[in-house]
């Protein structure tokens, strides 16, 4: 890693801070969220930056426990950026440290867009859809693929975000947001996400009805003669959209799950749905 000539920071300090970002969530709390965790992860860097300036170290460590929240693996990018600012603060007595706080706050939102919607909501689902196909057959590749596919990109972002955040400072983020990479990525990945959710609705929701009409040769089975011939997977499709509507109306998760169980038992008793 290329260092500023005046910097005390060495690669091993960044490595330490990198590992600490994995443990940021230990001290999560409602009002400050990842605040204490952020200061914890920054500590190896701050110790070096303010080596001979104990007063500024106290101020900085305390200040860094302020409210902070961003998807865990994205936090290192902000740490890199603020580390370069803390270094300026260490040598320049006129530097106002509240700028660091406001930069931190302004970066949380956009970075959460990458972290939460792109990785957690979309990429995780694509990983799950593929992993579940293996896991449903009892294949150990399922969970393994899931962990690797999700964590490899996250870990790369975690390390290179720290590195480039530090070497490029705020300009790193300007570059990222001016090219609208994030917006495009979210758009295209939500399309991919929708395709996969549609496929999973058809493949993974299990609903079969044993209901049939007539007798003997004229027997008409609702499932195999009607649904499977016209729209296979009609029942799962309807169920998914009913649940979607309920969620939209604000019905709570607990009630929907309980309702599903009650419905299952009723349909089992009257032989409307079968195992």
């Amino acid at each position, binding site marked *: 890693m290329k260092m500023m000539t005046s910097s005390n920071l060495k690669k091993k300090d960044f490595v330490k801070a990198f590992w600490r970002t994995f443990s940021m969530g230990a001290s999560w709390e409602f009002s400050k969220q990842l605040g204490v965790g952020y200061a914890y992860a920054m500590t190896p860097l701050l110790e070096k930056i303010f080596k001979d300036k104990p007063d500024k170290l106290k101020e900085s460590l305390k200040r860094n426990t302020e409210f902070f929240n961003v998807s865990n693996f994205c936090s290192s990018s902000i740490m890199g950026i603020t580390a370069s600012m803390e270094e300026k603060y260490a040598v320049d007595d006129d530097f106002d440290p509240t700028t660091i706080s406001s930069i931190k706050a302004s970066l949380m939102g956009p970075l959460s867009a990458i972290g939460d919607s792109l990785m957690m*909501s979309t990429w995780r689902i694509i990983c799950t859809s593929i992993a579940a196909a293996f896991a449903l057959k009892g294949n150990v590749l399922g969970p393994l693929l899931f962990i690797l596919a999700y964590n490899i990109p996250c870990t790369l972002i975690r390390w290179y975000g720290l590195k480039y955040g530090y070497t490029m400072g705020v300009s790193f983020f300007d570059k990222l947001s001016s090219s609208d990479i994030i917006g495009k990525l979210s758009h295209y990945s939500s399309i991919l996400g929708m395709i996969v959710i549609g496929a999973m609705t058809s493949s993974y929701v299990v609903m079969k009805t044993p209901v049939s009409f007539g007798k003997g040769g004229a027997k008409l089975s609702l499932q195999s003669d009607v649904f499977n011939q016209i729209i296979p997977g009609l029942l799962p499709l309807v169920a998914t959209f009913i649940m979607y509507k309920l969620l939209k109306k604000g019905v709570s998760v607990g009630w929907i799950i309980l309702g599903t169980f009650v419905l299952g038992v009723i*349909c089992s008793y009257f032989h409307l749905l079968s195992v």
Partner: protein
Amino acid sequence: MQTFLIFLVAIFGYAEYFLFGRGQTYRPIVMCAVTGLALGDFKAGIIIGAQMELAFIGVQEIGLSTPQDMVSASIIGTAIAIRTNGSFSTAIAFGLPISMLVLFVQNLVYILISPLFVQKCEDIAGKGETKKFSRWAFWGGTLLHFGPSIILVTVTFVLGNYFAKTIMSFIPKFVQDGLVIASGILPAFGFAMLLEMIMKKDVFPFFFVGFLMAAYLKIPIIGIAFFGVVIVAIMYFRDEQNKNNQKEEVSTDEDDDF
């Protein structure tokens, strides 16, 4: 021995928060498999994990909300299912109530004790004691926030071993079938939650691209995901081309003015 293994599994599960940097190892697809491995039925664990994952696929923690404690639901559910030779329906019927209890205890700690803990950490930070601060932030946070849940999971595992079989024998056949039916429908709930998160009008038709490919053509999910990548790539290049064409049009218009 099994109790100790489950204790380790619980630590592994909650390490999601204090050691694995939200690497999603706390999700049922991982946790149920690990529980199965610990109890000697790896395959059953993996399968139950896949089914529970699909039911919970829409549950994710963003910021404040902790909607479900999936670690305890996975461990206790899988353990009881394996013990009673049951399946995913048993796992979710037992796992869900336990996880609500664990979530309740977690929230009590977060509301009553965590603010004091954070206050203490800040005081230490203000004195510039970096080593002490690090110890408090990591060990203090870990033990306070996850210790109770880890112990609770281990205790309910021991109790579950005693009572699960008895409880199961009291449940009539049609109710047990009903649970299986419900557990087949539950993934629909998971996907509905996902739709609620990412649904926008302009991407909605793509839901049916995936649905119809799976329903009529019976293409496996992996194949559909690859088709999806191709579709997105085509769209991307078309969008870029349109943009370039627009630019060219603008420039030719300018030429006409001369």
